[in-house]
């Protein structure tokens, strides 16, 4: 935070209220260029809401979001996506009646590039997510792992500079999750910044440079991942349990 000009994304003093319910209470959050940030915290901490506000899917009650030194607070999700902020859903939401290829194509061809370029990007995203084999299947016939992969592939199709991942590893076996980890590590090599919400902390620790822990609408720890996991406040937030098993 000391060098805001070097930051890819900066969110300042984000508040979110739903009537009397306060979900976010003054959250400061930033992502540096090429950085991978993990967000952990108990259910109801406000992680997904924060992601929605960063992606523009929901407006914040107050506070400001800047991306590449540009104020994007008033931009909707479509405009932010075109700038490069792309998110995935916790529960995959494929366009069920369309093929896997078309799902990614819709994201790739949102008016910014030529069709050939969009095709290349779709092929690349599908290959990276291991979905080339099922490219012509209708998305509604996919199982959970493939839906999660498609969610990632579709986000990649949109050519992100900052990828916001919401529990993309949830419900997967260890082997399946490590495939996802590999895909995401490849993204990092391509210098795409990542913000990843995940309950399965040991997966997260394989990828992220920095860990943020949230509880009850606030950031309670922010720093080197293992240091954050050892932080007494974080341990307390997980009800004093063994943090590695508490997910």
């Amino acid at each position, binding site marked *: 935070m000391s060098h805001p000009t070097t930051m890819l994304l900066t969110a300042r003093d984000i508040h979110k209220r739903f009537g009397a319910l306060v979900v976010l209470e003054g959250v400061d959050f930033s992502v540096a260029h090429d950085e991978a940030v993990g967000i952990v915290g108990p259910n109801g901490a406000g992680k997904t809401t924060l992601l929605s506000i960063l992606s523009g899917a929901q407006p914040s009650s107050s506070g400001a979001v800047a991306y590449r030194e540009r104020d994007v607070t008033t931009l909707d*999700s*479509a405009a932010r*996506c075109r700038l490069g902020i*792309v998110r995935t859903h916790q529960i995959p939401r494929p*366009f069920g009646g369309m093929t896997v290829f078309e*799902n990614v194509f*819709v994201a790739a061809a949102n008016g910014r590039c030529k069709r050939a370029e969009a095709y290349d990007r779709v092929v690349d995203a599908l290959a990276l997510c291991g979905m080339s084999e099922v490219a012509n299947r209708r998305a509604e016939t996919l199982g959970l792992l493939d839906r999660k992969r498609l969610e990632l592939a*579709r986000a990649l*199709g949109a050519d992100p500079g900052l990828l916001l991942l919401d529990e993309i590893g949830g419900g997967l076996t260890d082997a399946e999750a490590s495939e996802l980890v590999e895909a995401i590590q490849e993204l990092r090599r391509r210098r795409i910044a990542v913000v990843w919400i995940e309950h399965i902390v040991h997966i997260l620790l394989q990828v992220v440079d920095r860990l943020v822990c949230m509880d009850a609408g606030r950031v309670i720890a922010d720093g080197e991942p293992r240091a954050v996991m050892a932080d007494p406040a974080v341990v307390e937030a997980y009800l004093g349990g063994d943090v590695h098993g508490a997910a």
Partner: protein
Amino acid sequence: MTWINQIIQGVLLGGYYALIACGLSFLFSVMRIINLAHGSLAVLAAYALFWLADRFGVSPILGLVAVLPAMAILGWLLQKTILERSARSGRLVPVLSTFGLAIVIDNLLFQAYGADTRSLAPFVGSLSYDSFDLSDDVSLGTLALITFVTAVAMLGGLQLFLTRTPLGRAIRATAEDPDTVGLLGINAGRVNAVAMSIAMVTVGVAGFFMAVRATFAPYAGAAQLLFAFESAVIGGVGSLWGTLIGGIVLGVAQSLGAQLHPQGFLIAGHLTFLAVVLARLTLAARGGRLRAWIGGAR
């Protein structure tokens, strides 16, 4: 031979029904909106063509050059001013607001043109009654044939557009999940406005053929809506090729009905419609693959 002739005439009539159902079916599949002003908008386009022809002597075919873009703009405006707002309030509200729109259009046309029936037939030379003989018993109307070909071209073109082009795919994705396309950089509101414009262009074309092949009056929209609706439902709502088949089924049923009894034309069409709906409900209750097939999977 008479029966074969009736079937052929029915198929051609079905092309016309598919043509007027095209926009209705497209709008339903794209935006899940049942546009009850569909028939009235077609009549409106017909009056616009009539006005150009009557006042300025512009041939209706040439008039389409002006009227179709005007319909596209009208579609955009309707989407932004009426449909987008009403769609936010649930599924029933667009039905009610388009019903209200139909009443407004009908009565404005009545105010402007009175109850006289009009036709564009006098403005297109002999096109409305030209025909050629296939055999002694079977002759085909040139206009009916053009209508049929136009219907196939329009439905096929829309189908290709939806499955092959970036915009078409964006329209389908928006139909499935407008929130998610927003997260992928697509402006759902704009996509829907474009879709509505496209639908209105097809309505303009339908209005042209309606007005050339027969007569129209300010309150003619409801009957057009009814046939369009029956065609779309018989073919499986939201399926474009299904709409073509639905139109043909309806046309053939009416044509054969007329052969059976002088007043059997409408009755046979409506009965076929009811039979299809009942059959589909029965199959839906049983579930299974047949239902997906007959229900017109996209």
